[in-house]
């Protein structure tokens, strides 16, 4: 008796499901607004910009659903390169783009469809922040930002109508320190290997980023003169690892970290007093009431940038929705949200409308805050009268020494990195 009942329910379910499938595949005339509600775009990327608040706002403003998946940089690369059908939108860094673009898993974007293209910061177009600025070493975003024509797997040398990634978020990274436990000014990258901090230093275990931090240190120590830190020769790679392996064996490092949370915990618990760090991690430590400074250093910053890329399988209405999403992304709300966490938006002037004068002054102009600064989630990040570590946008982004990079000798570097971790 019970059995037949189950069978009946299942059959009726199947029937209903079949009807639904028939309805959705039959080309019935429907309104765009009705259709867009059914669209789901799957976005994945590193934790920094895969925010549920953004997905919620997209639903509210644009009507379609955005599914977010946050992964670490290595997993993001892996997924973009090997599982092209598992995503519609890839939120990746520029150095990942250099690695992944040749697979053909992403499609170029038509610049003429991007409303705010003209307002995008120069770094992502000509490579120059201001007409006078020098282009830093490494995989600078503009070098992998354009391709000559749709379908090309190589990058263009100048701006074209076809963009690989639409820049969304970027920042200048440096070392994070615990001023209370160090008790003296820190001015140079060399301090990371200073024996004074034996057993209290850390770097990140992501090869493409870690190697650049290492290079900043070795160059600052005067041990190695690099031709181009972003594209080292085998000898330069060997020398760099030799210096760091020696330091590791001598017990300089407490631990290496791979995820954002690990870096926060290492710093907050006092296991580590000086380490490579990301800006919001500093914020996270500070919001626990523990002093932590994102120390500007005289040799400059190591910078990174991220952007949105479209899967090559996107087409039709989904593709239109993706363009709409990109235009919305650059229109200011997200930019304001990200800038209030300490990142920069690719189109700062649109973000200004979504920030208070105090917030704009503190985060972008490097001015003294006139009131309490809070994060988008409500945590207090700074009191009135404080200024941002490193100063204004132009001070910070103008002092970039190199970009996160993928080099020609990347495979060799990766093997050496593996050896370094095992050493």
């Amino acid at each position: 008796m019970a059995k037949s009942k189950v069978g009946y329910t299942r059959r009726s379910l199947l029937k209903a499901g079949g009807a639904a499938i028939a309805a959705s595949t039959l080309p019935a005339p429907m309104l765009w607004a009705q259709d867009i509600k059914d669209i789901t775009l799957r976005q994945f990327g590193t934790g920094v910009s895969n925010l549920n608040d953004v997905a919620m706002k997209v639903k509210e403003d644009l009507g379609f659903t955005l599914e977010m998946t946050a992964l670490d940089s290595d997993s993001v690369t892996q997924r973009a390169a090997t599982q092209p059908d598992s995503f519609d939108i890839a939120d990746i860094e520029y150095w990942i783009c250099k690695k992944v673009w040749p697979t053909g898993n992403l499609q170029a974007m038509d610049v003429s469809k991007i409303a705010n293209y003209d307002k995008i910061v120069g770094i992502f177009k000509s490579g120059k922040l201001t007409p006078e600025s020098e282009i830093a070493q490494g995989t600078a975003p503009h070098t992998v930002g354009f391709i000559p024509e749709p379908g090309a797997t190589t990058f263009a040398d100048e701006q074209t109508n076809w963009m690989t990634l639409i820049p969304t978020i970027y920042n200048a990274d440096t070392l994070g320190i615990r001023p209370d436990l160090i008790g003296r000014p820190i001015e140079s990258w060399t301090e990371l290997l200073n024996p004074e901090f034996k057993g209290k230093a850390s770097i990140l275990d992501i090869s493409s980023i870690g190697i650049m931090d290492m290079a900043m240190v070795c160059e600052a120590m005067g041990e190695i003169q690099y031709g181009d830190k972003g594209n080292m020769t085998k000898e330069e790679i060997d020398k760099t690892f030799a210096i760091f392996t020696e330091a590791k064996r001598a017990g300089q490092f407490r631990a290496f970290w791979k995820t954002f949370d690990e870096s926060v915990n290492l710093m907050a618990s006092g296991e580590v007093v000086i380490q490579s760090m990301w800006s919001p991690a500093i914020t996270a430590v500070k919001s626990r009431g523990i002093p932590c400074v994102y120390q500007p250093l005289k040799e400059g910053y190591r910078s990174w940038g991220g952007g949105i890329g479209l899967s090559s399988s996107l087409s039709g209405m989904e593709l239109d929705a993706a363009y709409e999403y990109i235009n919305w992304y650059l229109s200011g709300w997200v930019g304001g949200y990200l800038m209030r966490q300490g990142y920069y938006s690719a189109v700062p002037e649109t973000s200004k409308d979504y920030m208070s004068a105090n917030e704009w002054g503190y985060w972008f102009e490097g001015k003294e805050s006139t009131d309490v600064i809070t994060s988008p989630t409500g945590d207090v990040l700074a009191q009135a009268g404080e200024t941002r570590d490193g100063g204004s946008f132009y001070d910070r982004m103008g002092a970039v020494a190199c970009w996160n990079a993928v080099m020609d000798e990347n495979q060799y570097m990766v093997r050496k990195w593996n050896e370094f971790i095992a050493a």
Partner: protein
Amino acid sequence: MLKNRHLLGWLQASPLALVLLAFLLAPIVMIVIVSFWGATEFSIYPAFQFDNYEFLFGSPVTYRVFGATFKYAFITWALTLSIGFTVAYFLAFHVRSQTMQIALFLLCTIPFWTSNIIRMISWIPFLGRNGIANQTLISWGLIDEPLEWLLYSDFSVILAFVHLYTLFMVVPIFNTMMRIDRALLEAARDNGASGLQTLRHVILPLTKPGIMIGTIFVVTLVMGDFITVRFMSGSQRANVGRLISNDIALLQYPSAAATAVVLLATVLIMIAVMLRFVNIRKEL
């Protein structure tokens, strides 16, 4: 009739055979095949080359890492065996009431109600520089400076291993001990054997199959682990599993496959050698 029975036997065995073929044998064959392939920055391509193995056997790091893996496996094995044997011995021979035995045995399994990772990570705040362990030792006046080697060291890695895997030793040893005929112990005593002699000449030989099963569990688990080593050493130490996981993270699948094949062969050889010494079928 005979032929029919023959056919029936094959049919009965086929579901399991197919499952094993599809989900055990085929993936392993695939790994072996891929280990000869080549890799670029972002893709792998079919080939038949020995580059991956050449690099693996040519690098001193490989030997060091295999050495570290054996070291972890051996120390963990020795500690889990001594703790596991003691616990099982206590449960089997000292606790008289069966209810109590079951209750205490279940008590041993309580930590397994949470995940592996949680049990492991909860050591980190405990062992840290400003952790509970160091603070307690300082307040007792035993040390003046926090002990650095408590966390992110071989010590913390092995501690976590022992904590995670001792139960895998306890269960099979306890199981074998419960099957030992108590009359044998009485006979030993009647013949004038001391407690230690009984343990050495009666209990230990009869418990060997259990010890061997526990050993296989612990050794294979430790040899194949990568996450415990990563977390407890703060990425400072490496074992073979980490080598493989690093390769995978960097999209070097063929190289990871080659390392996996070598690791698999090593573990299989170790188990084959162990099985030469003890016949665990007696147990099953």
